[in-house]
């Protein structure tokens, strides 16, 4: 979870107090990534300890600012392409792999159940997008919606591929 870098990105827009950092982060992420206040302050404490932010508590509320180190860290994060592919350890894959261990028919049932649920999820998102639409959604929300739709499509394609492989081995 890149909350740490997300907070640095919010602070790159100028000094802010803790609660404003939380709300700006949530707005920037299209409202789909909620943070609790405790998590925000814990992360800010660590960033201060690491010299990425400074804290000014001379006024009524604590105001955080990005340091030069923080600027550099943020620039590195934005530019670092994730070249090293992470191990494929998502839950859906784990479910299919463990189901396969119980036998082909069980795996096919698990695939079918998840295909239905994911398709239903796509339909619900589409309905919401049609009802509320790009006229009311912020650009961030539209981009988040696109990502969620495409990821669900990708999972569905993968499930189809799993099914085809299982059918081919029967």
């Amino acid at each position: 979870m890149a909350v740490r870098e997300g907070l640095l990105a919010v602070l790159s827009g100028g000094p802010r107090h803790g609660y404003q950092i939380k709300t700006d982060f949530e707005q920037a992420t299209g409202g789909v990534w909620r943070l609790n206040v405790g998590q925000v302050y814990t992360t800010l404490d660590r960033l201060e300890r690491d010299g990425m932010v400074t804290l000014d508590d001379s006024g009524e509320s604590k105001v955080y600012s990005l340091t030069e180190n923080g600027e550099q860290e943020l620039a590195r994060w934005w530019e670092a392409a994730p070249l090293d592919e992470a191990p494929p350890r998502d839950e859906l894959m784990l479910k299919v792999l463990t189901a396969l261990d119980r036998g082909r028919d069980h795996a096919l049932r698990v695939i079918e159940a998840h295909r239905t649920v994911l398709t239903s999820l796509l339909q619900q998102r589409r309905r919401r997008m049609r009802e509320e639409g790009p006229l009311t959604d912020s650009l961030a929300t539209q981009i988040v919606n696109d990502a969620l739709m495409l990821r669900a499509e990708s999972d569905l394609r993968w499930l189809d591929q799993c099914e085809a492989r299982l059918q081919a081995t029967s």
Partner: protein
Amino acid sequence: MSEHSPSTGTPVLEFMDVVKSYGSGTTETRALTSVDLRVAPGEFIAVMGPSGCGKSTLLHLAGGLEPVTAGRVLVNGRDVSEMSPADLATLRRREVGYIFQRLNLIPSLTAVENVMLPLELDGTGRKEARERATAALQGVGLSHHLDRYPTEFSGGQQQRIAIARSLVAQRSLLLADEPTGSLDTVNSDEVIELLAGLPAKFGTAIILVTHEPRFASWADRVIFLRDGHVVDESR
């Protein structure tokens, strides 16, 4: 604002324990087995499944293009298997429209003449047919250059013309078999969005066969077919 919404009246299409086989004896192949399906007026259904699962067969039976082996297919309450060839032709002209991956427009007719064709075949006068065809084309977002020939339009525009042709006779059921197969992504999305708007606009029920989850997501219901069976459904 929707003018129409899926109703609970007489289904526009009903499959009752439908079986479809090809061949016989040891060479018999089941394309559909015990399929039950009800499609309400103005409902948008997507049918998904791997190649050979029976998707296209389902559309053929729905439109009376092929007879069932067993069971019943009702279109607007009437049993298709009891219809004469002439009745079936009338059914396809007046009640059931098709959109295919291949555009099937007649190249020697202009856009508006292509759309006028089903009306003229049904005895509508040329003037009225032209007015209705022009309105149908406007309904799918085409209002210019209607006297040009199909090849003068882009692929997406040609599919819009095909949709207008299938709608012009105010048919209650539209069967679309991979209608975006020959289009690029942008045109595909536009065509599906257009299709998805038809039930609310005209009260037309749609059955869309597609491989694309993105397109199926527009549907009220998604039916999953496997080896000729309906195995699941999502809403």
